[in-house]
């Protein structure tokens, strides 16, 4: 019953009596599991439906033996029929329970999301400029609303005017507040997040009921999920196996009856059929599917369809942005080089002053490095200086000191033009740094070259190992960057990425996606800008960042609320776990059957001395043997519910190794555990007095 206590770390009001909720949830699960005995629900799962039908048959015989005179004539044990019926009933109920628990988990996830949004009201801006309060549910796409400090954003939208500090923690779990303002790539806000400071005018981008929140709620709550091709094919296999075994058992009944070889007991044959049909996987299949979506939602990823999760498990190629995904996103200063004849201190001071009021991360890192090296800036009043910000025309930035001295930093060519030449020695150093993928900036005072500061793109800690994991899974990674080839090569080497595209233009990603898809590969890409939208839409898995634009989020089929591009690796793992869990349970079901045969077949041919060799488990009492096998079969469902909900473990390794490992675990494990389990249950039943040894 581990599923009943769902952790809800990101919901508001999560503190309200979790104990009370988990209590009502157990009640709900039980009610739901009973309600699922409705034949209209049962018929959707043919494997369990077969059990359901035969339960009714044995129940009828147990309740009113006289209406089946043929059965009663052949040494009829009513108690045996009752026992069989009860275990069959339990089998169906366990399958219902598995599904009900998975649904309850999903519902809990959906509720915590829904809680965020319920009762939201919004201050709508009418065309004439007037404001009026409306319920969030009455808003439509394109409406303008105003949100002020301490209010909650009613629906997903884009900031049309103003800017504000926003707390998205109830959506993303990320406690640091973020700035959202009009213009640029940081305009989109999520319904449910809170404005801490400032005020916004917001253009609604989602119809009520179609926002990301609603979509995720619908997906986790959906009673009829759209099945992936894998699930359809597996269902076909399971149903065919069930049908084949039905043919085997029904014809066996006739063959036993006509030939008189062996004992014809319908309860035993029903038990045998139920043991053999893949009830374990049949009973857990839908729970596996539901839990996959729930797990993705718990990872704070909004996904627009369940199929996308499985597609993630199948990926061949992953296209990643360099900036923000592989590198921390900013180039940082790592070294000063003084020009010939200039002392180091002067060069550092030039760098420090040129970057003194430069608020870009690069600028700050130059100032920080200089300070670290012991350079102190003279006291300056910002109002007396003139800041020259970076411009594409100037390709330099800097500061004009109160005395009129210009302290500049910029590209080698720009500074070289300014100074009318560049020291050869320094140029060599700069070229060498470029070759290593670093970015050299020239420093100048007035028209004189003072030295270089070398900036470096810093790879995120741990990214190399994660990309190596992807490689082991057989996923090729392609890094996309606007940097030159050398910089890109250096980052690619450092981060374990397989391939890279340097000097990428906005349309490069779309072209990359198209090329990879034309080779039949499944492609995923991460992105956040409006430029990325076409490629996100084209990719099989478009993984958009929550911090990105609405266009990007609309185009992708998954949105990471934490805006962490590397999280796509977690989604890939969840997708693979889904498939592995299904395959593992199927293998387990099938290998279990071997042991079940060796337990039930001897019970049918108990009187034939030549077939005694089949009784490898030495089960003396045929009816107890059948009950033990049937009980084992039923108990496997609840025993494996945790596996179905959490997913089979997945460690990145080569496919053949994974196959060998899972075959040993679930194939051989299923074979051995069934022999042992049935024997133990038999001993237990005999000990309980349910049959002679």
């Amino acid at each position, binding site marked *: 019953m581990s599923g009943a206590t769902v952790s809800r770390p990101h919901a508001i009001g999560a503190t309200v009596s979790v104990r009370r909720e988990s209590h009502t949830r157990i009640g709900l699960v039980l009610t739901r599991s009973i309600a699922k005995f409705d034949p209209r629900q049962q018929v959707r799962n043919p494997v369990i439906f077969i059990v359901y039908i035969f339960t009714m048959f044995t129940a009828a015989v147990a309740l009113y033996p006289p209406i089946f005179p043929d059965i009663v004539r052949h040494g009829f044990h009513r108690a045996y029929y009752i026992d069989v019926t009860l275990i069959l009933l339990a089998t169906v109920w366990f399958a219902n329970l598995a599904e009900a628990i998975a649904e309850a988990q999903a519902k809990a996830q959906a509720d915590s999301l829904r809680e965020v949004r319920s009762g939201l009201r919004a201050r709508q801006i009418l065309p004439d400029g007037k404001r009026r309060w409306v319920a969030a549910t009455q808003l439509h796409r394109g409406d303008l609303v105003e949100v002020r400090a301490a209010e909650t954003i009613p629906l997903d939208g884009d900031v049309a005017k103003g800017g504000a500090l926003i707390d998205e923690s109830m959506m993303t779990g990320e406690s640091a507040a973020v700035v959202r303002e009009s213009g640029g790539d940081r305009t989109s806000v999520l319904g449910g997040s809170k404005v801490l400071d400032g005020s916004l005018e917001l253009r609604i981008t989602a119809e009520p009921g179609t926002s990301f929140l609603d979509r995720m709620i619908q997906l986790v709550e959906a009673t009829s999920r759209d099945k992936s091709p894998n699930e359809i094919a597996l269902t076909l296999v399971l149903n065919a196996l069930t049908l084949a075994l039905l043919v*085997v058992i029904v014809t066996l009944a006739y063959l036993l009856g*006509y030939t*008189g070889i062996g004992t014809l007991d319908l309860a035993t044959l029903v038990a045998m059929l139920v043991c053999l049909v893949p009830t374990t996987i049949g009973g857990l299949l839908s729970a596996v599917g539901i839990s996959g979506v729930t797990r993705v939602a718990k990872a704070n990823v909004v996904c627009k369809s369940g199929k996308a999760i499985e597609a993630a498990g199948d990926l061949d190629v992953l296209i990643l942005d360099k900036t923000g995904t592989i590198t921390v996103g900013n180039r940082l200063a790592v070294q000063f080089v003084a020009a010939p004849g200039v002392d180091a201190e002067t060069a550092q001071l030039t760098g420090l002053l040129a970057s003194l009021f430069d608020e870009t991360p690069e600028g700050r890192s130059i100032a920080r490095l200089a300070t670290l090296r012991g350079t102190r800036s003279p006291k300056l009043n910002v109002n007396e200086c003139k800041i020259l910000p970076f411009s594409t025309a100037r390709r330099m930035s800097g500061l004009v000191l109160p005395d009129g001295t210009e302290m500049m930093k910029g590209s080698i060519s720009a500074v070289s033009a300014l100074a009318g030449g560049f020291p050869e020695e320094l140029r060599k150093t700069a070229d060498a740094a470029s070759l290593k993928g670093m970015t050299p900036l020239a420093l100048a005072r007035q028209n004189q070259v003072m030295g270089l500061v070398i900036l470096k793109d810093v790879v995120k800690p741990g990214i190399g190992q994660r990309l190596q994991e992807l490689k082991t899974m057989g996923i090729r990674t392609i890094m996309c960057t606007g940097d030159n080839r050398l910089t890109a090569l250096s980052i690619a080497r450092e981060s374990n990425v397989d391939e890279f595209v340097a000097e990428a233009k906005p349309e490069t990603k779309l072209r990359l996606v198209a090329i990879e898809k034309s080779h039949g590969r499944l492609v995923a890409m991460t992105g956040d800008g409006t430029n990325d939208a076409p490629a996100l839409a084209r990719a099989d898995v478009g993984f958009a960042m929550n911090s990105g634009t609405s266009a990007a989020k609309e185009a992708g089929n998954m949105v990471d609320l934490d805006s962490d591009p590397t999280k796509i690796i977690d989604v890939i793992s969840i997708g693979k776990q889904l498939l592995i869990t299904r395959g593992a349970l199927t293998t387990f079901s099938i290998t279990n059957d071997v042991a079940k045969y060796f337990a039930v077949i001897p019970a049918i041919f108990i009187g034939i001395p030549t077939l005694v060799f089949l009784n490898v488990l030495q089960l003396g009492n045929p009816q107890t043997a059948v009950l033990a096998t049937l009980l084992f079969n039923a108990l496997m469902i609840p025993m494996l519910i945790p596996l179905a909900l959490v997913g089979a473990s997945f460690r990145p390794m080569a496919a*053949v190794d994974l*196959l060998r490992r899972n075959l040993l675990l679930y194939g051989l494990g299923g074979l051995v555990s069934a022999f042992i389990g049935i024997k133990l249950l038999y001993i237990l039943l005999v000990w309980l007095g349910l049959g002679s040894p």
Partner: protein
Amino acid sequence: MLASSTLADVLFTLGLGLLLARWLGMYMSRLFQGRPTVVDPVFDPIDRAIYRILGVDPRRPMGWKEYAGCLVLTNALALVFVFLVLFYQGQLPLNFWHVPGMTWDLAFHTASAFTTNTDYQHYAPETQASLFSALLGLQTLMFLSAASGIAVLVAFIRGFVRKDGMVGNFWSDIVRTLTRLLVPLAAIGALVLLFAGVPETLAQSAHNALLGGGFQLIPTGPVASWDSIEMIGTNGGGYFAANAGHPLQNPTAFTNMIEIVMMMLLTFAPPFMFGRMVRRPNEAYPYLGAIIVLFVVALLLLFYFEASNPYVSGLNVSQSHGYLVGAESRFTISESVLFQGISVYGNVGATSMSLGSLTPGAQSVLLWGMFLQCAPGGEGTGFGMLLINALLAIFVGGLMVGRTPEYLGKKIGPDQIKWAIVTLLSHPLLILVPLAIAVAGGLEQVAAGPGSHAFTIALYEFTSESANNGSGMGPINDNTQYFNVAGGLVMLLGRYVPMVAMLAIGGALARQPAIPPSTGTLRTSSVTFTLFLVGFVVIVTGLLFFPVLAMGPWAQGVNWP
């Protein structure tokens, strides 16, 4: 258990068969990829003439439905033609023994048997088939049915390579199989057998003076040419009722070995052909490995079970040469068992022993081979079955490695799976349902002997028919309307349901683009995969047939190793 000389004999025969099969598989891959071969100058004009007569364009690729349509149509026409020949053989020429026409149900059963490459014989050829029927009717079908099986496999395999949804041209495949493979092979085989002592004559009887005066007429005929295509085409229908146990059909230990090698040719060639056709020659080995594991285990069990019979051991009878009841005394027990093993496991169905006299253990091993149908199974279709099993195994195994299952770059999804399970389902259905109906009237009506022995015989009948094997276990009263009609239908469904499924899977695969492999792709050329495939086939087949094996042969009493 096995004397070293016997072991050398067995290994030599199997080794020779495998070697020739490998060579043949490579030749066949060239043949069906339309690549030049040395025999082109001879056969190109012949083939062109045939295409012109048929009025077909051999270069136009077909989708799977059109291919299946052509296959079913030609086979149906042949079936009707041979049915008429058998029904009216009394009025037709070349009828030395004045054989009357067959009854409609026997004619239907026989025509179905030879069309489907089963060659189950509910009649005694010596007395119930004229030379006209044998030559123009049955022997023609022996070529056509073998060619059909190979053509279907070739089309199936093309699905793994092609990307345009087409599976090849039926007319080209069938004509090339006939002219460049079956006819030359059968001719060579017939000559070898002829020189080894098998008769080949259009005379229908040999006149033989007896020592005590008077004379006897011994039925004979073009036995060598019949025998050759019977073995090479995995047909298995005998020229004589005693089949390869008859001294004119299999006179010496040498012909016995030649016939074993002939049976191995087209049954063991397909893995090699497959590897070459999908341009990954090593892909042959996981399958060859699986076939060899399944087949060798069966062979060892057969040798063991036929080495001695524990029920005879107490009777003061020497079994130093094996349990010889029902076996030909001209051959050693190992020669007979090797013949029988490859004949049943290769779905040839020729018999050199009386199967009803085998020990129950040996009988269960033979039944198991026909339940499997793929170790190695009949010409083309046997390997097709193994591929279908492999697709199902790869599907389950592929899920366990966390990717949508794929094989040779083609995804295995609902389109392929639905046809694979039709095949999986059809075999038990076609065996168990008619069997249950057959025994409804009482086992003693069907076959003689104690209950489980009679049951084994009846089970063997439908198993052999559904697997398109054709070997029979007597004594059984099977020339009845029920057995003829039900048997005929079982053979037809047991043949064409899997064949259509193979073509459909090939077509579904051919519609897909190929995905390049990565380290995340399940590599099939590994020992792990081979063992997994063997385990999968054994467990799934066991699940379906375990109860009837217990009721039949095992209940008779088996001395397990």
